[in-house]
């Protein structure tokens, strides 16, 4: 395992895409925009020796969708590249061409949150049942399950 990446090193490679900050000793977060994510990921792979995609975290923060790509390599530093997608048009080009594991992760995110990854070779249902209705994305904040069922399993009067 080689040494941790310094903030300056990551900044010089990725600063032109957006803000770079060090959140913990081995975590560096980069904020960028959807148009530049492809190139940012490519640069992280080539210049910063990031050969392992850990996760594509996807969440709905009420106003928009956030996608965070976590990459790491032999240096042990986790580089998180974050983007935001507008709520009314959650679309972005797929990254499975430069990051093959993203193929499965993107399908799961599409199924649960409804973010469309254009150019994905096989964007089909993967985690919800085949008779789950279309356009129902459970992990969105405004999605509620069938009425009168507390979906957390916590009794109604305790909330």
């Amino acid at each position, binding site marked *: 395992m080689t040494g941790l990446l310094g903030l300056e090193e990551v900044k010089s490679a990725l600063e032109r895409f957006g803000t770079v900050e060090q959140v913990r000793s081995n975590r560096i977060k980069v904020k960028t925009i959807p148009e530049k994510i492809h190139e940012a990921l490519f640069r992280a792979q080539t210049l910063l020796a990031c050969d392992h995609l850990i996760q594509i975290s996807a969440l709905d923060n009420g106003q928009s969708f956030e996608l965070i790509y976590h990459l790491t390599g032999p240096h042990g530093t986790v580089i998180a590249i974050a983007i935001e997608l507008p709520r009314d048009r959650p679309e972005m080009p797929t990254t499975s061409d430069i990051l093959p594991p993203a193929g499965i992760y993107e399908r799961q995110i599409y199924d649960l949150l409804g973010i469309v990854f254009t150019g994905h070779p096989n964007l089909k249902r993967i985690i*919800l*049942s*085949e*008779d*789950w209705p279309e356009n129902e994305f*459970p992990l969105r904040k405004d999605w509620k*399950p*069938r009425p*009168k*069922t*507390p*979906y*957390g*399993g916590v009794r109604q009067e305790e909330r």
Partner: protein
Amino acid sequence: MGKITDSLSRRLANWARVNSPWISVFNTGSCNACDIEVIATLMPRFDVERFGILAKGSPRHADILIVTGPVTMKQESRLKRIWEQMPEPKYVIAMGACGASGGVFQGLYHVVGGVESVIPVDVFVAGCPPRPDEIINAVVACLKLMKEDLAQGGREWRQKPVQSPMPGTTTREPGEVPA
């Protein structure tokens, strides 16, 4: 075994059923702890195979269906189909908290509920997961039911008569606010 007026072959078949029940395990979306405890029951430590209990892959050869997991939406129709494929007399053991009501997953969006919401259940085993000893206990309870069913010639003896409410009380559904 069974009524004395039954034919010899029928009595033999009943004796074989009770003394060597074949089980089939079906996972309807569980976390696998229950499945592993069922397999641990077949392993040298608890070793139910010496009692004649065999674990068959296909439900068509099984007497007892052990269902694990809270029934997910995807598995609901398959569970029903598996149950229909089993030849009579068939028994269902619903394992664990998940089998009883959905357990810790009760009410989640992809979960239907306990096994009883899909197929009729004969024995519930408590635990999360139930220990192999408790599973053996459940199978023995199931065998007792089987014996009694064969002696009584069916399952009608198991239906409890509907209790009429005591005078002065009203019946209320759970969750309903009393008038």
